[in-house]
């Protein structure tokens, strides 16, 4: 029987901690996002309930909790109720391997990095089930889009995680943090870090990759049919929980986790998580939404080749200089990123110019042939 009590003693604190992290993020981040978006858009944002609107999340939750729990009559009831629970598995279980502090990890698995990727599968599943069970075309299209997008962007994400594993020489997240004793991996591998951020934003379906929830065309994607408490669950706990967990994994992999200047504590982890979430909100206020073809082209033609190149070069450097590979890989990565920033906009501009010229030519042709045009694109 002692093993059962052991299990409970190990399990319960971890469970409560993971749940608290997700609930806190669901309370803080939607409100923070609205206030920050307001600030960036030169608006006020919600500032009426309590000082500076700080009680707004509680008012929102109260409202959502006392709403009637509606299941659409044509929905598949069992799956409709099951989907949010499946989707919550990812944010809950990912936290198991993340080192919260110097001596606290819920379970330090020696396959932590693979585990994070494996657990991510459940959120795709939850979205697909929610989209299908709602029996609504917007939900279905939203679910399918998010699944397609997440599968595409998982490849560059996994390639950057593999890079971290190679640099560390281990799959355990605790060892990843220890390996960043002297310098963060974000400084050694800025390219990998940027690819992680971009692929993560796409994986979380945030702007500019929020096609699955494009409100002007799909209402809210797979969440459309969910209301009241279930909406709060899916939008608050699952979506923002995923954002938090992504930020936790990112700050552990690239920003040194709980390590920081002056003292080592989980406060640093919290600060880094807040910074990464702030970046996501900043993107939200800054970038317009991409089209689906641009999204896929960016993943397959830019991110995957870049991360493969980075991975191959880094592994080669580690083979050549097995003892002090940090400096060469850092130089390479910074050089790659400089080249990327210098030449990528030019290439994109040239491609855009060419497509516009082609479009212009074809339009002129069709107007000449059909005879309906009144001067083509210029008028």
């Amino acid at each position, binding site marked *: 029987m002692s093993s059962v009590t052991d299990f409970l003693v190990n399990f319960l604190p971890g469970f409560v901690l993971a749940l608290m992290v997700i609930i806190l993020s669901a309370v803080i981040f939607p409100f923070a996002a609205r206030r920050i978006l307001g600030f960036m858009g030169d608006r006020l944002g919600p500032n009426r309930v309590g000082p500076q609107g700080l009680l707004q999340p509680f008012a929102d939750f109260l409202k959502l909790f006392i709403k009637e729990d509606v299941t659409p009559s044509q929905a598949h009831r069992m799956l409709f109720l099951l989907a949010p629970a499946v989707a919550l598995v990812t944010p809950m279980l990912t936290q198991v391997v993340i080192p919260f502090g110097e001596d606290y990890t819920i379970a330090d698995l020696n396959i932590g990095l693979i585990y994070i990727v494996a657990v991510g599968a459940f959120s795709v*599943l939850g979205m697909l089930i929610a989209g*299908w069970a709602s029996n609504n075309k917007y939900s279905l299209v939203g679910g399918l889009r998010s699944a397609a997008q997440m599968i595409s962007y998982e490849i560059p994400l996994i390639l950057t995680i593999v890079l971290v594993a190679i640099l560390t020489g281990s799959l355990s997240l605790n060892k990843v943090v220890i390996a960043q004793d002297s310098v963060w991996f974000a400084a050694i591998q800025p390219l990998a870090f940027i690819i992680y951020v971009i692929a993560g934003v796409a994986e979380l379906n945030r702007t500019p990759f929020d096609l699955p929830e494009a409100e002007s065309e799909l209402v809210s994607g797979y969440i459309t049919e969910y209301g009241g408490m279930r909406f709060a669950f899916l939008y608050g706990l699952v979506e923002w929980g995923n954002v938090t967990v992504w930020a936790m994994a990112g700050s552990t992999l690239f920003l040194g986790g709980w390590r920081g200047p002056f003292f080592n504590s989980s406060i640093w982890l919290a600060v880094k998580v807040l910074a990464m979430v702030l970046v996501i909100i900043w993107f939200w206020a800054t970038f317009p939404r991409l089209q689906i073809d641009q999204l896929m082209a960016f993943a397959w033609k830019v991110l995957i080749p870049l991360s493969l190149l980075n991975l191959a070069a880094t592994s080669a450097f580690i083979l050549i200089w097995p003892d002090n590979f940090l400096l060469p890989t850092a130089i390479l990565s910074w050089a790659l990123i400089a080249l990327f920033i210098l030449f990528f906009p030019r290439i994109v501009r040239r491609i855009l110019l060419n497509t516009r010229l082609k479009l212009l030519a074809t339009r002129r042709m069709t107007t000449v042939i059909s005879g309906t045009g009144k001067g083509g694109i210029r008028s």
Partner: protein
Amino acid sequence: MGDFNQFFFILLSVVILVSAACVVLFKNLIYSALSMIGSFLGVAGIYILLHAELVAAAQVLIYVGAISVLVIFAIMLTHHRTGDLSLYFHKQAWIALPVCAVAGITLMVIMGSAAYNAVGEAQNPTDENIASLLFNEYAFPFELVSLALLVAMIGAVILAKKEKS
């Protein structure tokens, strides 16, 4: 510890068997696909009980994350209707029955033999062992498999392109 493992083993076995039966018995294809996921997860749990965490993670990553999602994707994208009869009243059931019986009896005979029961000790951690075997002893088959996957991918791309033109 033994009782605890035994309890989880029985629980997981029940999950695997029930969900595997549900795959065949459900009339709705989506329900079948979802119970297939339950069965895969149960197998992953068995791997964890055997201290093969890497294999369990790979099981979840590949079977739940990739294959099941692909199956559900295919079902959702194609127009389907719920069948009048579930699959076990299908005509092919009569062919499947003897095949399953032969396979089952063969498995039982193999598992009953002495050579099978002489299981080695569980090695922990497994990831290093697997990696060193994969990249030293079995490097050639490993590369061959990756080549086969590449060929399959290129083939899929070509097939998808042909359909458009």
